[in-house]
């Protein structure tokens, strides 16, 4: 009896283990032939993942010591990396963003790469400066780039022509963009017992005042797609913090930018804009990657978008006549070629089992050949300073050099480099929501943001000051051997 009970208990456990293994997909990985295996987590799917997989395959075939096993399509990779690193079982390489570098490095969750970069002879001069700088934090290098991007104005040439504008001449200042935007805006309004369609400048002053119309087509809407709202301040010559200890949410440039945003609902009406936005399910990526996208469906004539846009245009609006150029600043004489840049980067989390081998792979990706193959496959431009003419010749984006040019500009800016950027971004977006609903003035909106985020930054800096010396020593003494 006792024996059978033991058998029962053992059987019970065995059944659980079997079920667990079955459901967790415990299939045997492909053999690595005795090579050191590097685990690599990446967020990409689709053609972007295919491009990286091709580079991984090339690396695996190029030598017989290291084998990179890529796990792709990891959603919310930052959160998963955080939990895996905290749990002591991170991957050897992870594809993340510079904002991850900021948040993770300060908390000791990444491996400093300085010594390995130095040994490999990789230098800042090898890169477009901004993309190198985004990989460093507190004077240490935490990552190397994989693929970069920059933003530019995309415009619909057909809609320009219909509005009587030169289709090959994009606006050169923000004021000119606003004037063109009015010309490109078409509204439906009731006159007598007739519904008529007119361009915005053709409305009478009384009609403009009453705003009793429906927006059918819009020239430019700064909330479309609305992914970088607080960063509009860069086009006004402002910044989001002083780079050290103070945020600048209430700077004159920020107020000027917020007044420009507020001028949109003041001109076109809060409800009219909401109704227009709802007509293509505002904000969701599902509507971005579809024919519903207002830029692809001739509903918005000008939009701020990244280097990836060509790929989606060719997929969802292949007949579209479009152009790309630097998005004009408020004061183009002082601030020519303003853009926002960002990039995907490769990092080695703290606790990775094979940091040297992981770096071997990162170094391989950063060589001209593999980098051009990756960036061409992902239809982006290369972060390296020297690029072959063949790369541009083969590139499907006819405006790719425009994106490189703005990225090389001294006015190429990126998101602030501190660990509480997430909070700051959310606070500014909430303030912008209230401004766009005409509930508050810009001055009223930024006051609480400044107070709240500065308080959070102070708290973060206090903590950093406590561990700074210790961390700096640890990082400078780090030796992957």
């Amino acid at each position: 009896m006792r024996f059978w009970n033991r058998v029962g208990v053992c059987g019970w456990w065995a059944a659980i283990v079997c079920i667990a293994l079955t459901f967790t997909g415990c299939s045997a990985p492909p053999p690595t032939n005795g090579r050191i295996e590097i685990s690599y987590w990446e967020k990409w799917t689709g053609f972007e993942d295919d491009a990286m997989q091709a580079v991984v395959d090339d690396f695996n075939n190029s030598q017989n010591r290291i084998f990179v096993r890529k796990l792709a399509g990891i959603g919310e990779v930052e959160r998963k990396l955080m939990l895996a690193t905290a749990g002591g079982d991170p991957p050897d390489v992870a594809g993340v963003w510079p904002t991850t570098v900021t948040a993770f490095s300060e908390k000791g969750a990444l491996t400093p790469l300085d010594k390995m970069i130095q040994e490999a002879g990789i230098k800042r001069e090898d890169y477009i400066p901004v993309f190198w700088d985004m990989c460093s934090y507190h004077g240490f290098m935490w990552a190397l780039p994989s693929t970069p991007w920059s933003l530019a104005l995309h415009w619909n040439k057909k809609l320009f022509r219909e509005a009587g504008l030169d289709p090959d001449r994009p606006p050169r200042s923000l004021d000119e963009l606003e004037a063109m935007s009015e010309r490109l805006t078409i509204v439906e309004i009731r006159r007598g017992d007739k519904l008529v369609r007119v361009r915005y400048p053709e409305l009478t002053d009384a009609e403009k005042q009453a705003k009793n119309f429906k927006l059918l087509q819009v020239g430019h809407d700064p909330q479309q797609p609305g992914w970088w709202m607080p960063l509009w301040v860069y086009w006004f010559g402002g910044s989001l913090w002083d780079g050290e200890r103070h945020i600048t949410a209430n700077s004159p440039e920020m107020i000027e930018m917020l007044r420009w945003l507020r001028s949109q609902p003041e001109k076109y009406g809060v409800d009219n804009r909401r109704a227009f936005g709802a007509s293509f399910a505002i904000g969701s990526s599902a509507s971005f990657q579809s024919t519903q996208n207002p830029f692809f469906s001739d509903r918005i004539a000008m939009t701020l978008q990244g280097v990836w846009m060509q790929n989606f245009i060719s997929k969802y609006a292949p007949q579209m006549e479009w152009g790309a150029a630097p998005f004009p600043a408020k004061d183009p004489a002082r601030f020519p070629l303003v853009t926002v840049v960002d990039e995907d980067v490769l990092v080695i989390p703290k606790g990775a089992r094979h940091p040297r081998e992981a770096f071997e792979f990162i170094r391989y990706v950063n060589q001209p050949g593999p980098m051009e193959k990756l960036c061409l496959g992902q239809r982006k431009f290369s972060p390296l300073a020297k690029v072959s003419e063949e790369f541009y010749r083969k590139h499907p984006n006819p405006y790719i050099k425009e994106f490189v040019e703005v990225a090389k500009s001294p006015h190429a800016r990126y998101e602030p480099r501190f660990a509480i950027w997430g909070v700051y971004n959310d606070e500014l977006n909430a303030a912008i929501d209230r401004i766009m609903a005409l509930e508050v003035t810009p001055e009223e909106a930024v006051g609480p943001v400044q107070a709240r985020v500065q308080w959070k930054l102070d708290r973060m800096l206090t903590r950093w000051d406590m561990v700074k010396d210790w961390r700096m020593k640890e990082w400078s003494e780090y030796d992957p051997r």
Partner: protein
Amino acid sequence: MTRGEKRNLGIGLAFISPWIIGFLAFTVFPVCASIYYSFCDYDVLSKPVWVGALNYRDMVTDTVFWKSLYNTLYYAFLSLPFCLIVALLIAVMLNQDIKGRSVFRTIYFLPSLVPVVASSMVWLWLLNGNVGLLNYTLELIHIKGPQWLADEKWTKPSLILMAMWGCGNTMVIYLAALQDVPRSLYESAEIDGANAWVKFRHITVPMISPVIYFNLIMGIIGSLQVFAQAYIMLGGGGPNRSALFYAVYLYQNAFDYQQMGYACAMAWILFLIILGLTWLATRSTRRHIYYEGE
């Protein structure tokens, strides 16, 4: 305890050990750890630093915390009574002797079987201010519908409306209770000349009062922890954080802002709020609940 009993106890414990180990590792330990972390500055990646009651003190001055609490209480206090009443009405109707009763029961229960992500996507389109079916229907009766999810005044009512749609579980529990009410009570009342309302008021409601109480308590617990629909449909809280619920803000602190200590403190405050409201509900309804056999 005899040797045999001890042996049986050992075997019994061994058999339920998978559950016990899981419960200790994945429930008891995290709950206890969260008490400790709530008194720490903790970002998951580096070691927690003891800061005393700082996280709790921060909550007092955190305006977003108060807004999320207000949004959650607003949602709970409106959605809960509506859901309890609507579910009861549907259950009473489906308890009548009508043709195709089981088909109707299935139809009304079906929405609660739909995965929350799928139903949220459907509601995103139903509530669309321009092309949504809801505004289209309103237009047929000459009412101009609002921008449900784009206008901060309408985001919470939209989610409350959505909650009504998923009352199927509550309805099924009512239905089971309604079928337990003895028919003899209704027959006696009918002999005494009672009409439908009097029967409902003086027989049905008292007889199913323990179930109403159960649904009330489960509703308080569930509605104060509302998360999935709001997070899927309105991400960071919708326009001007009008639908930023407590659980969403807690999640943002834990995983977006890496302030796990603050998130743990928020979780304990939520626990105390739910505990307080449940106690209040229990006390205030005690006299109105009738258990058979009492």
